[in-house]
């Protein structure tokens, strides 16, 4: 005879004390406290120390402006954090939040106390995401404070050469930090999923970092723009579009949307798989292959559908790096920076309209198609010399990366874009036209 089973009915624990409990547990291990301390101190110390050096990290975006303004240091920290720092943080926090209970053998104890796997999941997910956000906020504030206190809150030169006043720079830097929260939350959600599916396995802990590393490798390649934009890691780069005039918000909004989709899907998958678990099974050591497939396939599907949708709904195609875009971007940056140089050299003021700068670019000679990333771009910038009808020219060698960022290296004439020093309010600085950072919007039609 089969009869119904009647488990003891008790109301589950309220969410708020459960969340508090999870936060206490998450923040009690010394490694997490050390991590929080490091996030509070290390960025400020890094910015302070590096800003005082004669040699700056010019290969990192905004690195060359670290002597000029404290905001540049924060953006250098942001760039480093986006490459590996934030994925590692999410691994350490979210990747361990469920696995820790497996390691300590406390699941049954927790379930008896909370009486609801749903509440446990909600409290754990919220706690992990809160701690991740706390760590990001700590890094951001620390880097800004470190820069402002040691270098000062001076205007910042954007990625198209235009100057942002101190207030606007502060707002934009804070907005940039805010913009990396969605991809960070997406990786944190993947961490939750890994922690649920893979249990005590080290792979469960490292999943966000491994995924981020894989996606970063993909982003280094000249992959089609729709695929690039469908990966949440792209949102770690898209904040750069805020530092142009007008701001390139397309990739940023798409990156944010993609990241939120990933965060929601990964969290939902983790939730479903968590609720399926049998907590009386003492031999449990991570879900089986079917569960792993059930976790991985939807995310891969999301990336595929995302790429397809972006391909259909946006003008994105190819690598997104085209001759016309590079030329327009370089000409704009040149015009803005020429104005800056004129001011620094105490020459008569000039406007971008008067200069009417244009660029003519070629990639790799006549036998190579002028599109795609590479360090073999060569551009000739032309502009109208103020007060005369003559046209000036300057040559640049460009190293354009697959993500759309480029470094233009002045190749003459020496008195225009050569390596010489100019006197600025914050001290001597390299000629702003010598080497410059630029940005190509991959989505631009």
């Amino acid at each position, binding site marked *: 005879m089969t009869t119904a*089973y009647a488990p*003891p009915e008790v109301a589950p*624990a309220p969410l708020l*004390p459960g969340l*508090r409990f999870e936060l206490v*547990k998450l923040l009690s291990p010394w490694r997490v406290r050390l991590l929080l301390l490091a996030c509070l101190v290390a960025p400020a110390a890094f910015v302070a120390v590096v800003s005082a050096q004669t040699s700056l990290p010019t290969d990192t975006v905004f690195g060359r402006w670290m002597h000029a303004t404290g905001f540049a240091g924060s953006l250098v920290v942001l760039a480093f954090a986006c490459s590996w720092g934030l994925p590692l943080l999410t691994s350490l926090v979210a990747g361990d939040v469920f696995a820790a209970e497996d390691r300590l053998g406390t699941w*049954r104890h927790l379930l008896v106390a909370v009486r609801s796997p749903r509440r446990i999941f909600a409290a754990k997910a919220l706690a992990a995401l809160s701690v991740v956000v706390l760590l990001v906020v700590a890094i951001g504030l620390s880097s800004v404070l470190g820069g402002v206190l040691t270098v000062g809150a001076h205007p910042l030169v954007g990625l198209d050469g235009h100057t942002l006043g101190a207030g606007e720079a502060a707002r934009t830097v804070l907005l940039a930090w805010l913009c990396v929260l969605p991809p960070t939350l997406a990786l944190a959600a993947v961490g939750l999923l890994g922690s649920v599916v893979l249990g005590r396995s080290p792979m469960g802990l490292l999943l966000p970092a491994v995924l981020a590393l894989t996606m970063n490798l993909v982003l280094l390649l000249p992959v089609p723009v729709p695929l690039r934009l469908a990966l949440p890691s792209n949102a770690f780069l898209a904040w750069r579009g805020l530092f142009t005039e007008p701001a390139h918000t397309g990739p940023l909004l798409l990156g944010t949307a993609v990241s939120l989709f990933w965060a929601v899907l990964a969290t939902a998958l983790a939730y479903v798989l968590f609720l399926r678990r049998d907590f*009386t099974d*003492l031999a449990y050591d991570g879900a089986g292959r079917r569960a792993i497939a059930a976790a991985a396939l939807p995310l891969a599907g999301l990336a595929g559908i995302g790429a397809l949708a972006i391909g259909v709904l946006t003008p994105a195609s190819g690598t997104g790096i085209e001759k016309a875009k590079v030329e327009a971007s370089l000409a704009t940056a040149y015009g803005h920076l020429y104005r800056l140089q004129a001011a620094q050299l105490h020459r008569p003021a000039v406007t971008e309209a008067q200069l009417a700068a244009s660029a003519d670019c070629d990639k790799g000679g006549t036998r190579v198609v002028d599109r795609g990333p590479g360090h073999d771009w060569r551009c000739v910038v032309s502009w109208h010399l103020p007060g005369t009808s003559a046209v000036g020219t300057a040559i640049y060698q460009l190293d354009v990366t697959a993500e759309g960022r480029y470094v233009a290296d002045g190749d003459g004439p020496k008195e225009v874009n050569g390596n010489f020093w100019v006197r600025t309010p914050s001290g001597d600085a390299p000629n702003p036209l010598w080497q410059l950072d630029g940005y190509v919007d991959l989505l631009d039609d």
Partner: protein
Amino acid sequence: MEPAARARGIIKTYGDVVALDGVDLDIGAGQVHGLVGPNGAGKTTLLGLLLGLATADTGTLEVLAPPVAGFVDGPGLYPTLTARQNLAALAALHREPTAGVDEALAEVGLTDVAGDRVRGFSLGMRQRLGLAAALLTRPRLLVLDEPANGLDPAGKRHVHRVIARLAADGVGVVLSSHRMDDLAELCSEVTLLCAGRVVFSGPVAKLAAEAGELGYGVLTSDEARAVAVASGTTGLRVAGTDPLVVRGPADALDDLVVRLVHAGVALRELAPVVSPLEAAFLALTGAEEAS
């Protein structure tokens, strides 16, 4: 006696493995009920069902005296938190008023280490803290999996006192243990599980009676003569000679003692090789034959 929990025809399977196969169980309020069985018999599964950790495939389980508290598979504590933090966090999870944290710590004798991190606790201290955590909810049914595991004699006595006091206050206690001496000391009723089935359920004294003929070890001043005397004792069977082990009814054992004394052999010890409960366990689970 008021019932605290009642299970009828509980079946629980994990894939092809039948963990519980038609289990009936009655736990009375104020009763300490022992759950014994070999490893894999289904004890932890049954305790998990009582705690609401899982649901049975079929059968009925009624918890008639809530709330239920306790632990299975270890007390489940967080090593980076102090004893007090562990309990305070748990107390905050309950909607109903709970016992005070300090009161629970005092109950299990851990007041002095309340501010210490659990990481440094011995297994016995963790067991006691786990018991304190269970006491926070003022349970009417307490479910404990191996509560005396890792306890030193003093700690064990302390825990036994706590369990006895709870039972005296009307709390139904179900505990599993492999230590038959603990069960004999604490439990009034015992259920013996083997391969997911109940092979015995009833008073401890009745289980002891299931032991059948016990083997007694005989320690004397002259082993060779003692073996000869035992061999000549009516109704007694020599089960081993080094050391001497005999089996037989009580009157035959009395006769052996008299005969040894008359033969000038000093009797130094006469005791069951295994306790009656252990012998019953071995006999009913078939472990004796297997060994």
